[in-house]
């Protein structure tokens, strides 16, 4: 069985930052592997270690600078990586879900994986849509926000538990090939081992252009435009007390009383 994991390098923001037009100024930004993808990689690597999967391949849409981040997945156990990038993607600051879907779909057509794992969302753009959109366009079954996966995968089905709104969970089965979007907490992602880091430098990381995978450059022209960026007003403040329950219960009671809550 072959597993394809979609991974992305995302922008992370310092606690304090300033917005400049529709961007956050560079000095407040760092790059890291998308948190959800870390869980997806761990799940795939565990399936491989358990003898269920034979090969774990990662795919990303990103520039050459993202390779260091992408190698984290190789250091943690993925076998090889594909990185799609193209001149036409260079100036695009909002690559929409449709474009990502088209690009990933072309890679899936080449790789023919049995299972595709993606993160529920990316930490920066937070579309929460790419995995499901990809499944739809491939006509694959899918399950979103998966927080438990049975590693049997027997008879070509995956038994999953998924998180619904309000703390409700659903158990379901999906037929393979399928796309699962992986929720944080499904496992405990490992640190890349020192040997893993050494080996990762020698694992294949193939760079491909849109042309290489047969996708028209026009796909990057999205219908969405970023018009504004601002910090949302917080409507209420949370008060956090530090200390033991004995120490802080009185303070909580006091505050509730002040707010007019009476027994």
């Amino acid at each position: 069985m072959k597993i394809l994991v979609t991974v992305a390098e995302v922008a992370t923001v310092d606690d304090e930052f300033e917005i400049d037009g529709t961007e956050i100024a560079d000095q407040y930004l760092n790059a890291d592997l998308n948190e959800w993808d870390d869980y997806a990689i761990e799940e795939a690597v565990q399936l491989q270690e358990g003898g269920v999967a034979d090969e774990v391949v990662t795919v990303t849409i990103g520039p050459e600078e993202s390779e260091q981040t992408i190698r984290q997945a190789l250091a943690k156990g993925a076998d090889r990586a594909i990185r799609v990038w193209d001149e036409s993607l260079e100036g695009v600051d909002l690559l929409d879900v449709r474009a990502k879907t088209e690009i990933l779909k072309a890679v899936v057509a080449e790789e023919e994986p049995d299972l595709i794992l993606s993160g529920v969302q990316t930490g920066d753009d937070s579309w929460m849509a790419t995995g499901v959109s990809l499944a739809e366009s491939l006509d694959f079954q899918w399950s979103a926000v998966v927080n438990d996966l049975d590693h049997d995968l027997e008879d070509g089905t995956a038994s999953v538990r998924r998180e619904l709104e309000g703390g409700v969970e659903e158990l379901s089965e999906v037929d393979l090939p399928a796309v699962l979007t992986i929720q944080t907490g499904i496992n405990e992602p490992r640190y890349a081992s020192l040997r893993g880091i050494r080996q990762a430098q020698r694992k294949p990381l193939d760079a491909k252009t849109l042309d290489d995978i047969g996708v028209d450059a026009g796909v990057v022209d999205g219908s969405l435009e970023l018009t504004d960026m601002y910090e949302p007003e917080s409507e209420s403040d949370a008060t956090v007390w530090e200390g033991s329950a004995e120490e802080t219960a009185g303070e909580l009671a006091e505050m509730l009383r002040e707010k007019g809550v009476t027994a």
Partner: protein
Amino acid sequence: MDFELTDEQKQLREEVRRFAENEIAPIAEEYDVEEKYPHEIIDKAADMGLLGPHIPIEYGGAGYGSLEVAMIVEELFAVDAGIGLSIISTSFGCESIMHFGTDEQKERFLEPVAAGEAITGAAISEPDTGSDVSSVSTQAEKDGDEWVINGNKMWITNGSIGDFFVVLCETNPDAEGRYNGFSQIVVESDRDGFEADKITGKLGIRASDTAELIFDDVRVPEENLIGTQDAAFMQQMQFFDETRTAVAAQGVGIAKGALRASLEYAQDREQFGRPISDFQAIQHKIADMATEAEAARNLTYKAAWKVDQGEDITKLASMAKEFASRIAVDAANEAVQIHGGAGYVNDFPVERFYRDAKITQIYEGTTEIQKNVIARELLGKGAF
């Protein structure tokens, strides 16, 4: 000349930083206060393959050189020196086995260390033997096909939790010349007659285990002798370039941690209606700390790089060790000053850094000994 790190080195540093911040930072204070050995972190470090990073790949290590080891040490010590030392010291003494051991000894001793199943120590110092290593008096006498060991070793890192120790013993008291007649012998802690007394009440690096070792007619097989009989003093000296460079990296790490904490606190803390980082007195402290840390890092990386090229760098290693340990003490001192009263209690890590930093000027050759070495190399004569 190229100062750029490779992608692999950057990735290594990032991952160790992540490990230190997520796993060590939250518990460092507890282990310092309780002066207890961090077994749970050692297990996690073993999972990451972080133990014995310089052990060759064929024996289960990562086969990293001195430069990569320096980077690992720096990131660990920037968060906590006590736990950092606990992690990095699980393979203390193994350098001798790596360079002078037989294949059989390497398999027997190095593999369990790389796998995180055994912890080791280097036992050189004695109650009456510190800076003057040639005065070692622990005796090893041959009896049939066994060595019989008697004596005391002092200040031994991992002493009460270690599985085996590479012990510097006197094997030929009649040898000519003060540097001859010593041998390195591996002593397992489960041998009869072996005893370890944990030393408590340390100023800093309190998570790291330190003990006195007592050998009372301890018998080990003759196969436990490492390298050449009676020639261990020279064997031991060979690794000073490597081990002193690693202690230099400890200093760089502590300075980096002190700087990081100071930058954060200075921008947060307000007095006279503005962050204290607006005051030039504070800015200059921070500028000095950053400059000195960078200078120490470059000296350390250069020493490490040269060790990896196989060069003999006695003077450079001593310079790096002496300078980095000095600026670590200075940086920790200024970090407490920048924190004011808050720096005097353990709500912030700088109080711990201040206590931890001092050891880097003492072990692996004191500051005075490093300066003696540097001067001896410059003047071309014995300066002891």
